[in-house]
């Protein structure tokens, strides 16, 4: 039995999935200071996009990923314009109610349209497994992990070195000063929201060959993504990636050593413990939640 290599591989692959979801969430929070409670529902919708593209058009999920990125950007842009823009300067309470409302609406829309049945994208290669050193690697999970690292690195580079990224960071630091410098903050928020939705959309498509999709599918991932975002430091993409791996390690190793029933207790205890010691998270900037307001 090669238990330890397998536990390490499972940690990396599961952590990659959590990171993929967390990175869009932390981007939106980092720039807009909005906690998007509908993030899981966008994930679920993207999984349905992959499922229907596969079932009706016989599109491989990785083809769908490429084709659908502009679609997710457009959906993100539209949802910002229609739902978020009117409340972007409102209090956090109003924003929370808005995103929770959006979450419930999207969940029920999916329920009405596609019922509560769990559906699964069964590609020809869904059972293909790479075995190295006694550990089994699922191909779809490897792809998800690689894309997660790529997205995190890409977003990090985009935010640090691109002009738009600098504008977004400037807006995050001080919204009013940015406006005075001639930055169209409304446009920055729209782009940020749309890019965040692209990230979670990509995550949804990549998850479709791994997990079944149903109207509440997003919930089981997004709670852990919230933990990773806060643990890594609100708005910190690399922090979210590392925190996602930490949460996955606690979940996988804790499940094996202590018991699966304890996994949530374990990572939430770790979460509370780290916040007691470092309230801004592992890599977060102290007071980040108050920036730009």
């Amino acid at each position, binding site marked *: 039995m090669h*238990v330890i290599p397998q536990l390490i591989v499972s940690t990396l692959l599961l952590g990659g999935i959590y990171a993929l979801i967390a990175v869009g969430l932390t981007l939106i929070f980092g720039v807009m200071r909005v906690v998007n409670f509908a993030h899981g529902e966008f994930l679920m919708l993207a999984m349905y996009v992959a499922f229907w593209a596969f079932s009706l058009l016989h599109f491989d999920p990785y083809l769908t990923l490429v084709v659908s990125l502009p679609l997710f950007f457009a959906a993100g842009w539209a949802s910002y314009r229609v739902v978020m823009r009117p409340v972007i300067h409102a209090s956090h309470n109003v924003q929370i109610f808005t995103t929770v409302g959006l979450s419930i609406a999207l969940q029920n829309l999916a329920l009405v349209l596609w019922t509560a049945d*769990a*559906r699964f994208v*069964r590609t020809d290669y869904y*059972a293909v497994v790479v075995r190295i050193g006694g550990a*089994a690697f699922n191909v779809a999970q490897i792809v998800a992990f690689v894309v997660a690292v790529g997205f995190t690195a890409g977003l990090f580079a985009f935010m640090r070195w691109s002009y738009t990224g600098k504008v977004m960071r400037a807006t995050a630091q001080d919204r009013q000063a940015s406006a005075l410098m001639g930055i169209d903050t409304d446009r920055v928020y729209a782009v940020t929201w749309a890019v965040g939705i692209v990230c979670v959309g990509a995550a949804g498509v990549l998850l479709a060959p791994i*997990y079944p999709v149903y109207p509440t599918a997003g919930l089981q991932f997004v709670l852990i993504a919230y933990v990773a975002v806060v643990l890594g430091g609100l708005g910190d993409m690399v922090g979210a990636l590392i925190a996602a791996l930490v949460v996955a390690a606690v*979940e996988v190793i804790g499940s094996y050593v202590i018991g*699966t029933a304890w996994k949530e207790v374990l990572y939430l205890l770790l979460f509370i413990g780290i916040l007691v010691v470092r309230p801004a998270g592992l890599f977060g900037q102290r007071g980040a939640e108050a920036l730009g307001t």
Partner: protein
Amino acid sequence: MRNTKWAAVVGLVALALGVGAVQGQQQPSGEYKIGVLEPLTGNLAVQGKLHLEGYEIMRDLINSHFGGVMGKKLVLVSGDAVDPTAAASEATRLAAREGVKIITGTFSSTLCGAASEAASRQNVIYWETSCVDPRFTRRNLKNVFRTEIDGTGFGWYNVEFIAKHLAHRLGKKTNELKIAYLSEDSSYGQSVTESARQRAKQEFGMQEVGLEYYTFTTNDLTPIILKLKNANPDILHHIARDQDAILFWRQAREQNFQVKAVVHAGATGYGNPGFGKAFGNDANGPFALLEPGPGLIIEKFRPEGQRVERAFREAVKAKTGSDVLAGGHQLAGGGLWVLKLVLDAAKSDDLDKFRAAVMSLDLPVGSAVNGWGVKFDETGQNSNARVQHYMLQWQNGSLVTVWPEEFTTNRAKWIPLGPWDQRK
């Protein structure tokens, strides 16, 4: 000419009487209304609507072929039990506003407790046909009855199948069998698993080599599979919800987890058609305890059971176009049929008379829909041994009935389960 007309009239009357005689029932006169509570919106709506359809099909059958209930036309009035709060308020509404004396429902174990408590406060009979929470009939409520077995009954049947069918197919005595238990952690999963553990150990001396509970929304079951590989059981007793069965099966294959048989109970998880849709022929092998599926030999039922089973299947096919009955149809239709038998015997919905009729009803296996028999205990629970259940197995993309063998044309395959790519 006049004689010819009279002859025609007499002939028509005789024909009408003859049809009645063939059906053996008087046409119902007047109406008798009962309440039906099901989740018709929300996450449970798919199953709730199937149950409601099952009640409606059986209602129409009872009225058209079996003389209604207590000689009256049966009428249903429905309520939407989307969650426990709504279940309680709708039960109250059906009793107080609609004036029903009997409420039936509610599919989910999360709903039946709240709905029946509310019905009890209104002094209304609560006739449950499908929720399996064992606590439902353990509250000393005299107005509560359940036609379906509870979660402990599922565990009882699973061990019956393992001990009396799988053991000899595996060439082992029951006390040589190594069994591991895996279950999602709801009251349903726990009640089935704990009753199976108890019976397997106490009655058959099976060797328990693993026990693990998990939340059904878990994202990775690999650690559990690694533990199961270490335990090396002959049989995996796995009670799954839905998506967790799909995740487990995929990851078990990735980890090349070999077990000789996988046994489940209920219409969730491996008993859900979605499992077959997810995997096609790769789903081959697992067993699920359910109502009878394809392969059932109806001729093995008693004559009265055959008659109502055939009529019900024809009615379902006329309504849905399908020869394969959904579990929701079978549970609701089967439960409503037993209610009709009780009401016809009691001739009243007075609780004392109704309860006396319930307790005196004693029908052997094969007497009713699904091949059920009837014998309620003092708690209001129909007995495990009478509510005949069937083991179905995934074979080439379909769930087919494989046990008890006297009731089916199909036979269980892949015992023991071979390598993953050879279960064709």
